[in-house]
Structures are given as structure tokens and as C-alpha cells.
């Protein structure tokens, strides 16, 4: 929070013309029962196809390819913020074109993925895109495939921190705050994604009703982890 001292120091220091490279966001850690189960599968099998729909993670790509798995990356949250998906209806309300979104993203054949890392996508994505995206993922997963998703258990407010997650191969996850500019916008327009909603258990069960089974893990940081089997 700016203080009088801080503002005075800025005044005397003057402005700088240097464009400093922003430091990467610090990494936090959290224990995750869901990723623990995923890690056991990743460490015990070869040649799995893994889809990571979170922010591009060099860490995850290195880890997965280093274990001999095929890694697919799609930052779906960032893609969902594309201004080209948005238009106004006759009453001035913003509508998001789910068909266009799925025409341009998650364009794969059926039954490809053994594991899908969904992270906190559903909590932060535009509501009209969530169910179509989950349905598309269902069709692209192999029978018996695993999908991991995180949901807030209480309304932490629209400004609650959105994290990206890095796999470590154990039951520990590394987390970094995520900020990005929507597609086609300059880096100066980086913004933090806003929490859109809080799902309750029934909502989550409905969301994944086409899957074979669902397992919940509750964590102390008000995150509900969900591991579903295709």
C-alpha cells in the first residue's frame, strides 16, 4: 500500500526511462491429494497423452516430456478472454460465442487423452463456456482417463488470486499468481482473471455427470479438488 514516505521517495527519485523486466511471480507450494494420485499414474506408466489447459508451464512441459509422456498445452482461460468471442445482444448484454471458442480451441480427435489437468479453469472461465468445454474434454478423453479440477469452496470475492500450477511429480504443487493480457492485446494490459462463481457439490456433480466416477478431496485452503474418471 502506498505511503507518504513511498510517494516522497518516488518524487525525489524521479522517473526512469528504463523498461525493467518484470520479475517472475514467486512460487508457493501446496499439498494436493488430487495431483498425488495423478503423479502416481504418471510415474508408473509410459507414453501417456496429457492435456494441460492451464497457463503455459515450462515446468510441466519439462516434467511430462522428461517422463516420456506426450504433452499438449492449451491455455483455455486466456483463450476464453479473446475479445473476438464477444458481442452484444439487442439489450446490450455481452454474449460469448461458445461455438467459435470450440472451433478454435480443443480441436483434437476423440479418445486421445489419458490425463487432463483442468486446474481452476471452471471457476474463472465465462459461465457459458464451462459446460461445453467439459463436454468437449469428455469426448476427447480415453475411457478410464483422469481429469483433475480445482474449485473454490466459498466465495473468496472476484479479486481472489488466480494461480497457475506446476507439477513436481509428487503430491506437492507449486503455484504462481497468474496475470495475462487477453489475446491480441498488448502486455501492458495484463490483468488478473476474476473469480466468476463458486460451485457447490451438486453443481460439480452435474458438470461431470457424463463421467464414470467422481472423487472429492477437501483442502484447508478452501479449495475442493475433484478427480473424475472418464
Amino acid at each position, binding site marked *: 500500500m502506498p505511503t507518504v514516505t513511498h510517494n516522497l521517495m518516488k518524487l525525489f527519485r524521479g522517473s526512469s526511462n528504463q523498461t525493467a523486466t518484470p520479475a*517472475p511471480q514467486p512460487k508457493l507450494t501446496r499439498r494436493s491429494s488430487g495431483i498425488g494420485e495423478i503423479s502416481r499414474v504418471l510415474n508408473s506408466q509410459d507414453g501417456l497423452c496429457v492435456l494441460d489447459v492451464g497457463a*503455459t508451464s*515450462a515446468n510441466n*512441459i*519439462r516434467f511430462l*516430456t522428461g517422463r516420456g509422456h506426450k504433452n499438449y*498445452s492449451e491455455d483455455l482461460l486466456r483463450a476464453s478472454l479473446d475479445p473476438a468471442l464477444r458481442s452484444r445482444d439487442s439489450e446490450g448484454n455481452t454474449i460469448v460465442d461458445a461455438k467459435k471458442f470450440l472451433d478454435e480451441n480443443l480441436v483434437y480427435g476423440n479418445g486421445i487423452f489419458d490425463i487432463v489437468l483442468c486446474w481452476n479453469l471452471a471457476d474463472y472461465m465465462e459461465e457459458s463456456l464451462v459446460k461445453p468445454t467439459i463436454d468437449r474434454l469428455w469426448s476427447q478423453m480415453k475411457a478410464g482417463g483422469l481429469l483433475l479440477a480445482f474449485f473454490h469452496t466459498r466465495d473468496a470475492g472476484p479479486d481472489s488470486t488466480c494461480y497457475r500450477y506446476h507439477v513436481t511429480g509428487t503430491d506437492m504443487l507449486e503455484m504462481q499468481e497468474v496475470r495475462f493480457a487477453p489475446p491480441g492485446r498488448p502486455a501492458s494490459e495484463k490483468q488478473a482473471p476474476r473469480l466468476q462463481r463458486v460451485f457447490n457439490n451438486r453443481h460439480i456433480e452435474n458438470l461431470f455427470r457424463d463421467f464414470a466416477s467422481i472423487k472429492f478431496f477437501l483442502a484447508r485452503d478452501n479449495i475442493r479438488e475433484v478427480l473424475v474418471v472418464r
Partner: protein
Amino acid sequence: MDAQQPDGPQSRELATIGKSVVIKGDLSGSEDLYIDGQVEGSIDLRHHSLTVGPNGNVKAGISAKSIIIQGKVDGSLTASDRLDLRKSAVVTGDVTTQRIAIEEGAFLKGKVDIQKEAGKGAAS
């Protein structure tokens, strides 16, 4: 337009496509190439390096020995040795390589397939 270099002694010079240059067609060559302009088509530098600079905008399938991306690429990338995505890279397409390095901030949408040569490691 085809811009094809004739076979001959391998050169250590670096060919450059500047940021005001726009090329549509198939590029192939026997020297390293730096692209900071716009290229649409295909790029084949089988035994050499390709660098896409920060202003580069490439819509092409790329095949090279090593590839460094600082700009925008829409197309598949095949690097027989190594692929480097720098922090300003925006890549949409499947990637096949022996080794990959990705800086924090790089964006990748597509498949990463590491294909190791026998007897060589892949991690970097």
C-alpha cells in the same frame, strides 16, 4: 514465390529477413537464418539454425536443426536438435524436437513430442 538456395558448401554467414520484409512461399537453405519480418509458407533449414526475432511473424511449418523463437509462429515446428522458446514467444502448433527449453512467459498452444536419438539425452 519460391526462394530456394542451391546446394553448395555450408556457409557460416547468417541470412536475415528484416522486419519490413514480407515473404510468401517456400524457403529452404544451407545456412542459418534470422527472421524478423513476415513469412507465410514453409521453411526448411534441415542442418542449420532458424531464429524468429521479436518482430517476426511466421505462418509456416518449420524444419531446422535448432530453432529459437522470440516472436510469433503459427505452424508446426520440427527441430532435429533443440527448440528454444524465449519469453516473448507465441507459438501455435505442434512441436517435435530432441530437447526443449521454455522461458517463463512463453506461450505455447499445441503438442510437445520429444523424440530422442539413440544414446542421447533430451532434458535441458
